[in-house]
């Protein structure tokens, strides 16, 4: 147990991220199911109160984005990247552990709000954030959100931001500096490339939301008027700052999954990725262009025709590199020998669903048309096609692909196929009708709707679909759990993959590679036109390999952050200072601890 608390091994940290994130994914899913249950009937639904509903959709969005999808990607960054680049660990193993603990504590802090009501003299148990995952000013002002709900939100997100930033710095250095000999940048596996681009987006986008949250904190705690018209402030400034973060954030969410798809398709087609260089550069272009589109989330705010035109234009432009990837994936499948493993099914599902989500995105790019679409269930359909149909399906593809490597055990393929088909049916049943309910006039974020709108039938379909997704996910959860009782007999390279993570045993030894390999191609383990497969690495290392021990300081330092947040929530300076002291002492002890890589 202690070894898990002090671990600095990227593989263990990856598994910690996985289970924690999957737990939050289930919680976020439960929140969605309650939302869908409430909306199955018009005119009051099943009786979920407006206040509870507003907390549910706020927490569903916040949980899925920050506590489930990003950390699930991080689980793979952690486990797979050092293996793919031929390294023994990440550049800063203790910083890596720190990121995990901060994530866990931030997630617990945020969810503690569900039961913290009594501590704040509230008349209900839950004071969970309730102003939306996007927290628009000036609804988030102290005047219109007097309780601690929004405070939980802005403090929780600031904690989580630190986790993401730390991981961002870590992986950038790892990928740039710790590649095995011969692994030039254009020989990097696609997953690692997309991860690298994602980390650059993280370290540039998160400071912007940090500033937005700090300004909101000042408005709520110290009486400033950054977003309050009474003092000359402009609520629109919040939207600009938030979406300057928020748009790169959606690429942070999708690029890793695109990276996974780019790994899975070649392996199960027995062909290299079609257009490797183009796929890499399209990712880079998407990252740059992603900074230029943010106000397409604000088309109804009255930006003016010139701004509307510019952002409509840039948004349409970004469809091009995105489409290019899809064509290259089809090109990878084309002419191959496709094995329909569950992993491949999910990767193909990603492509099929992302096409739909991407196309509805193009309809949003047209600013005037968007005036009928934005803030309705049409856009809820769009985001779930790209985030569920895209990111989640891509992550499932990664799970089935890399689970044998990470645990030495296979996930059941038959349960996997059931999971896949149930998920595909469920998600289309849940989200496709939302295109209609939206265009028939059902806005977002409403706890009930009148029967006269005529959207009850579509809502019923969506609810059934959502519950199907729930069943499918539970089947998957069972699939995960039952591997514990499986024999750990997965070979080093069960799928015949081409990249370095498949070079050693499943799971790899603690030091990853007995000998650091030298690579001569993008596909080190395959026979290519110009290279034989890499020589098998020895079973035992030629000399003892030093494995760094664990450290308590990442976890202890991380603990200081929620303490600061609790002090701020309670308006108690001594607690804030105590938390700061924990952080400072933690950093000093960390810095002076003898820790050999």
């Amino acid at each position, binding site marked *: 147990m202690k070894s898990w608390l002090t671990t600095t091994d990227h593989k263990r940290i990856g598994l910690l991220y996985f289970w924690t994130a999957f737990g939050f994914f289930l919680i976020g899913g439960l929140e969605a199911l309650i939302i869908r249950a409430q909306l199955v009937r018009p005119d009051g639904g099943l009786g979920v109160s407006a206040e509870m509903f507003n907390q549910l959709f706020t927490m569903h969005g916040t949980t899925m984005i920050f506590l489930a999808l990003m950390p699930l990607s991080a689980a793979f960054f952690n486990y797979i990247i050092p293996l793919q680049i031929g390294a023994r660990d990440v550049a800063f193993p203790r910083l890596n552990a720190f990121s995990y603990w901060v994530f866990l504590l931030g997630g617990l802090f945020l969810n503690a709000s569900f039961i913290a009501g009594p501590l704040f003299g509230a008349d209900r148990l839950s004071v969970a954030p309730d102003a939306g995952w996007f927290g628009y000013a000036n609804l988030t002002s102290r005047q219109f959100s007097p309780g601690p709900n929004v405070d939980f939100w802005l403090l929780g997100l600031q904690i989580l931001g630190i986790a993401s930033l730390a991981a961002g710095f870590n992986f*950038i250095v790892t990928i740039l500096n710790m590649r095995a000999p011969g692994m030039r940048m254009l020989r990097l596996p696609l997953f690692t490339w997309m991860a690298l681009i994602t980390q650059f987006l993280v*370290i540039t986008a998160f400071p912007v939301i940090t500033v937005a949250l700090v300004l909101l904190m000042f408005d709520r705690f110290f009486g400033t008027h950054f977003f309050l018209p009474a003092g000359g402030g402009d609520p629109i400034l919040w939207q600009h700052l938030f979406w300057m973060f928020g748009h790169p954030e959606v690429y942070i969410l999708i690029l890793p999954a695109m990276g996974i798809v780019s790994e899975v398709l070649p392996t199960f087609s027995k062909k290299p990725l079609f257009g490797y260089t183009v796929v890499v550069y399209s990712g880079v272009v998407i990252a740059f262009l992603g900074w230029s589109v943010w106000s397409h989330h604000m088309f109804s705010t009255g930006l003016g025709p010139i701004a509307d035109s510019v952002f409509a234009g840039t948004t349409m432009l970004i469809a091009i590199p995105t489409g290019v990837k899809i064509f290259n994936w089809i090109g990878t499948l084309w002419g191959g020998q496709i094995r329909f493993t569950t992993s491949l099914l999910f990767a193909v599902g990603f492509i099929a669903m992302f096409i739909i989500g991407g196309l509805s995105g193009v309809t949003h790019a047209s600013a005037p048309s968007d005036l009928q679409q934005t803030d309705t269930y049409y856009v809820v359909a769009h985001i779930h096609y790209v985030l569920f149909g895209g990111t989640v399906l891509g992550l499932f593809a990664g799970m089935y692909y890399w689970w044998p490597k990470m645990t030495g055990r296979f996930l059941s393929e038959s349960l996997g196929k059931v999971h896949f088909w149930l998920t595909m049916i469920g998600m289309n049943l849940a989200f496709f009708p939302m295109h209609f309910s939206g265009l028939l006039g059902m806005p977002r974020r409403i706890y009930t709707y009148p029967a006269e709108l005529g959207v009850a039938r579509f809502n019923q379909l969506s609810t059934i679909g959502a519950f199907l997704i729930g069943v499918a996910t539970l089947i998957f959860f069972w699939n995960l759990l039952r591997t514990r009782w499986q024999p750990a007999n997965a070979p080093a390279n069960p799928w015949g993959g081409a990249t370095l993570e498949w070079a050693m045993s499943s799971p790899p030894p603690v030091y990853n590679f007995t000998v650091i390999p030298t690579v001569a191609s993008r596909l080190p383990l395959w026979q290519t036109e110009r290279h034989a497969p890499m020589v098998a690495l020895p079973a035992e290392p030629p000399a003892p390999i030093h494995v760094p021990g664990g450290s308590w300081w990442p976890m202890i330092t991380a603990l200081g952050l929620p303490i600061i947040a609790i002090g701020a929530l309670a308006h108690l300076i001594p607690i804030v200072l105590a938390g700061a002291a924990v952080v400072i002492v933690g950093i000093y002890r960390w810095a002076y601890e003898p820790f050999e890589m």
Partner: protein
Amino acid sequence: MGVDSRKMAFWAFIGSECLLFGSLIATYLVYKGRSLVGPYPHEILNIPFTSFSTFDLLMSSLAMVLALAAVQRGDMKQGKLWLFVTALLGLVFLGGQFWEFSHFLHEGLGLTTNLFGSTFYVLTGTHGAHVTVGVIWLLTLWIQAVRGKLGPKQALTVEITGLYWHFVDVVWIVIFTVVYLIQ
């Protein structure tokens, strides 16, 4: 890639911090001229005084350069001296900020008085917090040097400290220009 991992990580961090300060400066610029009540910048900002502060910080960067050069060549006597001078000049800057803020408060410009006050104090306060962290960092290194535990082998640590310190200085130049000089 030919750059030490810690240095590379620090450059990434500085890149990130550029976005942090960039957002704060953008907020300042967006709200420039939109305060509903005074005091207004032209009434209250003291350019001569702040020019001196700026000069002080620039000199501290020079001291930092000298400190690093000394440590790199193994001259720990000079290294200790210049590390201390850098920290001291940083403290002088902070003292100046403290004095300026007290003066402004006295003149009626508080954090919540108007948009100028809010954006000014949050921007310069964030910068001041960064300087404070830098001073603590420098003094920690100085104490290490006094204890004989800092030498040419730790030159990279001093170099990274220098990177941080110069960055904080550059941010100040931008703030000084945007807030004080261009009104």
